[in-house]
């Protein structure tokens, strides 16, 4: 795990790594991240050449293509003080796995290491680097939080989202004993071994329902889409959102997988 700086940097130049799932499925998480980062004093930019962190190839054993994608990401984010992603899984990929992809190329490896040292997951960046203690937002709800595996185990994201959520007016956080249990998503796993994946998801949604929460939050779109899809198939009345939307006070869009009536008007 990285050691955060002693003092919050002043007006840092931050590149937002949008992540492919936020880009394609839930742009509102991207805009929520923009709002949170700008209000915390960042000069925010969104480099154009970004696509995906490469995990689908990496987890399928395609190291060569992964390295090519990694090189593209590292180049796209050249020159930023920080690279921030609204995903523990993608940030973990950029930070923990990129350097090892260039084991045979000392120059590129050094670049990847320097890059990795600037990468942060969104809530951890806000709390650990920008030293944000609380935020201003309101959402009356009984929420439970899912700790996504990579964020939790690779980056140590656990207390940061909770610290910020504590500042949301009206929000009650109910901890699930299964908060740290995998939701069964696993990238391509969820389709390749769909039955196993759905069974794991079923144990997870059971635990979520047992908390009595009406809102499920997490910091990773993959897990969120998986849990939302399972909860909705089961007919459970639980709204599912990325934590950034709640922290940014941008909850006018319907929850993940919920009906929308032909536009972005509120529910």
């Amino acid at each position, binding site marked *: 795990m990285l050691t955060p700086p002693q003092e919050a940097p002043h007006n840092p130049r931050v590149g937002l790594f949008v992540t492919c799932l936020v880009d394609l499925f839930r742009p509102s998480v991207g*805009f929520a991240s923009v709002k949170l980062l700008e209000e915390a004093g960042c000069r925010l930019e969104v480099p154009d050449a970004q*696509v995906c962190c490469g995990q689908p190839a990496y987890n399928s054993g*395609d190291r060569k293509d992964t390295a090519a994608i990694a090189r593209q990401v590292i180049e796209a984010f050249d020159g930023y003080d920080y690279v921030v992603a609204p995903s523990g899984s993608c940030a973990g990929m950029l930070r923990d796995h990129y350097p090892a992809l260039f084991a045979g190329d000392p120059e590129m490896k050094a670049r990847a290491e320097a890059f990795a040292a600037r990468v942060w997951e969104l809530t951890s960046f806000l709390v650990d680097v920008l030293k944000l203690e609380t935020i201003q937002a309101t959402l009356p709800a009984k929420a439970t939080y899912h700790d996504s595996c990579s964020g939790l185990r690779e980056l140590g994201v656990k207390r940061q989202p909770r610290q910020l959520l504590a500042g949301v007016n009206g929000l009650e956080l109910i901890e699930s004993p299964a908060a740290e249990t995998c939701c*069964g998503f696993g990238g391509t796993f969820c*389709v390749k071994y769909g039955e*196993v994946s759905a069974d794991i998801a079923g144990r997870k949604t059971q635990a979520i329902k047992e908390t009595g929460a009406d809102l499920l939050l997490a910091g990773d779109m993959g897990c969120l889409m998986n849990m939302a899809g399972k909860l909705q198939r089961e007919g459970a009345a639980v709204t599912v959102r990325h934590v950034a939307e709640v922290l940014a006070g941008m909850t006018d869009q319907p929850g993940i997988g919920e009906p*929308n009536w*032909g536009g972005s008007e509120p529910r």
Partner: protein
Amino acid sequence: MSAHITSPAFKDNAKAALADPNLRKAMAIIAGPMAGRRVESASELPEFEALRDEAVKIKNHTLAHMDIYLERFEAAATARGAHVHWCRTPREARETVLALCRSRNARTVTKGKSMVTEEIGLNAFLEQHSIQPVETDLGEYIIQLAHEPPSHIIGPALHKTREQVAELFEEHHPDYAPNGIKPGPRSTEPQTLVSEARAVLRERYFQADVGITGANFLVAENGATMIVTNEGNGDLTQSLPKMHIVVTSIEKVIPTLEDVSTILRVLARSATGQEMSVYTTVSCGPKRPDDADGPEEMHIVLLDNGRSEMLGGELQELMRCIRCGACMNNCPVYQSVGGHAYGWVYPGPIGAALDPHLIGLEAAQHLPNASTFCGKCQEVCPMRIPLPKIMRHWREQAHDKRITPPMQRWGIEAWAWLAQRPALYRLATRIGMTALRAVAGSKGRLRSLPLADGWTAQRDFPAPQPGGSFMAQWKSGRRR
């Protein structure tokens, strides 16, 4: 190979497991209480993390000087009157055990729990040669009656409910009559079932000509072999018959007893959540002239089976494994499908990392793929083995050697090709997302998706938000 392999059918095995109500009942206990006990017992011991580090250090040191410690072990064991047999392959190990049994004209052998005997398929082999192996560990005994392989490395019959055990006993112990009274329908009380197994097995101990056990540790400094059990069956197995054969593998060697005591402290906590296993048995050679009891002969069959090739490579860290089972108890996939789905001796994360080496990647290719990479196994592994990293190594091997199914490989390569061409990627994904949105309509989600029924069979699929991708909206000037 040795034990029967069904790993290539992992998907079918998993499907069958998911549909088996008894298995689901049994697995709930592993996911709940068993995994929970480890957490409790680890948190009771403030120095648990430091102990893990210490245990890792001991094993790393031993692995770096494996040859020296193995030779030292052999010399010390020989000096105490035991015989050490080096076996490269499962076949050599089986033949060695058979020859030893024949030298005693053995008809019946009792067996303590040993995963290495499973690895070499010893029971079936002995039966083929008219020698009856009798498992004395309760779990092993149960699955022997059921003609099944173990489903867990420390709890071989964890997949059986007590109702199923009672049925098996009913069928296999027709003459069982404690105090001369035949029981009616078998009680499903665990204690009653245990007493019944004890009573039946007691007679078998005295009939056995040879006792076979495994070993958790081989102590280099004094040539002792050690087993840890909770039933004490190992003690009777090894001390009553005239010959004791230890069947184990080379990576069990540890320099000193002191080192063993460190590892024991993390082993039991990780395995069952106990502070210590109930029995820790140290065997130092055969009976000496003034000993009251013990076997006349002691043999140690040391299996390599590809282990020495693991030294110095990607897989070396697997040699630290102490077979505690924590990785499987805590694995979401194992908790869903149980041990048999993995199709060979070592299931769960350790199996996913180890089996491709032992039975070949072609046969075992599903195992390292059937993981969400959640990292829980590595978190709980007392020996800090980077299991996901090793599973990824196998995925890379499968990709490079073109063992991965072609459709899957092409799919990923096509996606990766696109991901390296942002403009084209945005065009292609725009078409895809527009289609998804159109099909979902105002419902916001899809109930079925061609090519992704793995997802949609049991889950809805959330549709993309209206308004286009983030990148497109950002470029058109939207900021909030």
